[in-house]
């Protein structure tokens, strides 16, 4: 039934409006641009922000990759990829280097991104000041005045309570020395990848109706106090069970028969490529 639909599902004027919002977002790095979030065949809060950006940017020559928490094969990633493919007929891939558009939820791929690629992140809560200021009217003013003491206060409170900043994911960052931005719930491990990235990073929040962006080669600094520096997650010397790699983001898994805890690379396509390379080398 999708074959009869418009290319990339959305009508042209909707796509144009979303592209215009994206352009504005790129022009003001880190600023949340409001846009008219469209109805889609998936529920709001399930990646509609990212999907609308993908659908409005995609062309026939694009190669698309969709991941969900590092995995190309989870139900959400597969469903979103199917929807994009059925309405556009573009090629899809799981190889990060090959893709021109990468839609992702909660992770930035381990393979370094390169120039010309666009990474589109699905964002549930775009407002970094929301947990200290519930009113949108007021947070907009705070952004305008560059008053980010709320975001710092949250970290200070964490240090008071837990002895360290307790943001598991979505650790706030300052973009280009101006706007403080929620990097969507990527783990702190991925925060440094935002800084000076050669690829364009776009953030779409469908339920909250906001689009924001980090243009290529933009300075992105994770907020941290002078005496409590920013730290990525550490895995206490644990290694991936299958590859033996350690400087990657690991999943903690439990073997259901033995109850043993083991670690494995979270980014599934990176894991697969690494294993394939090893087998190739062995057969040679």
């Amino acid at each position, binding site marked *: 039934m999708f074959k009869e639909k418009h290319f990339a599902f959305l009508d042209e004027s909707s796509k144009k409006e979303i592209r215009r919002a994206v352009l504005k977002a790129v022009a003001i790095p880190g600023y949340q641009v409001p846009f008219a979030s469209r109805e889609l065949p998936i529920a709001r809060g399930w990646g509609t922000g990212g999907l609308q950006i993908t659908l409005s940017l995609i062309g026939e020559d694009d190669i698309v990759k969709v991941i969900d928490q590092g995995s190309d094969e989870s139900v959400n990633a597969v469903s979103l990829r199917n929807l994009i493919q059925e309405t556009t007929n573009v090629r899809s891939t799981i190889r990060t280097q090959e893709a021109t558009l990468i839609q992702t939820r909660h992770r930035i791929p381990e393979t370094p991104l390169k120039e010309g690629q666009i990474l589109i992140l699905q964002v549930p809560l775009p407002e970094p000041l929301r947990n200290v200021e519930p009113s949108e009217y007021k947070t907009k003013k705070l952004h305008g*005045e560059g008053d980010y*003491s709320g975001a710092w*206060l949250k970290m*200070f*409170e964490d*240090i008071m309570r837990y002895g360290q900043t307790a943001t598991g994911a979505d650790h706030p960052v300052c973009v280009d020395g101006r706007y403080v931005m929620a990097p969507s719930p990527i783990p702190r491990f991925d925060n440094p990848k935002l800084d000076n990235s050669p690829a364009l990073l776009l953030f779409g929040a469908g339920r909250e109706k906001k689009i924001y962006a980090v243009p290529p080669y933009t300075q992105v600094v994770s907020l941290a106090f*002078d*005496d409590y520096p920013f730290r990525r997650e550490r895995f206490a010397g644990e290694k991936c069970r299958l590859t033996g790699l350690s400087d990657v983001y690991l999943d903690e898994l439990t073997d259901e028969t033995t109850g043993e805890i083991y670690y494995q690379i979270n980014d599934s396509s990176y894991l697969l490529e690494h294993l394939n390379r090893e087998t190739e080398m062995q057969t040679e």
Partner: protein
Amino acid sequence: MTQWEKPVLTLKNFNKTFGNGCSFCKDKPENLKGGCCPKCRTIYACRDVSLCVYCGEVVGIVGESGSGKSTLMQALYFDSEPTDGEYYLDAYKNGERNIFADSRRQQKWVRNMLLGMVYQNPVMGLKMHFSAQSNIAEKMIAAGNRDVHSMVARGNDLLERVSIPPARRKDNPCNFSGGMQQRVQIAKALANEPPVLLLDEITTGLDLSVQADVLELIQKIQRANRNSILLVSHDLSVIRMLADRTVVMRNGQIIEEGLTDQILEDPQHPYTQQLVYSLL
């Protein structure tokens, strides 16, 4: 002029209206009924208020509810925008720049660095679900401090001064008693050692012994730091205890001002006379 002769805070011709006004009430104060236009319902909360506070001086503002005291305080702390008027602080650009005409960012800086505010209702001044320590740090963070250890040390120092026991310093103010909340607010107001403190009905709603504690604390701090204080209260005994000079407001206007003793012993304006004689 020596530092004692130059006002620390100067407010000139401050006006605040809620509503746009109409031909019946604009520039015709004689047509107003109790600060309110009977035709267009515009409220003239403050009309042509001018006052100054000198270094180390405590100025009290008294008046019945609705007389514009709190509106005045909110404008001085940039919680609301004035309709018009001029506002100078000696510590800001040598007192030559009208802060009301400056940018919002500058106003925030003044608010964080040069002013300390204690509200009648602690909910206004404190983040109830952040620890007492964090509430005090908020002012220092806003002033650009990014060093946790120094902020914790300063926070402990201030909480010690307002006698919050160490065991409770990491608790949320929503679990504190009213008097403790008020003391945390005072500590917060002092965080950046501002030259001017604004106190808005700080003892209203507290029981008598706690009132005395809070007032004594304010007096002690004022004596030690020589802060200039602008103090709003409808309680004449609070004014008598703290204020050097008193301003009486009614319907948005200053109707009488003078030394506190003078005002209380020999009131001139009929309303002030009524106010003083109704003191139990």
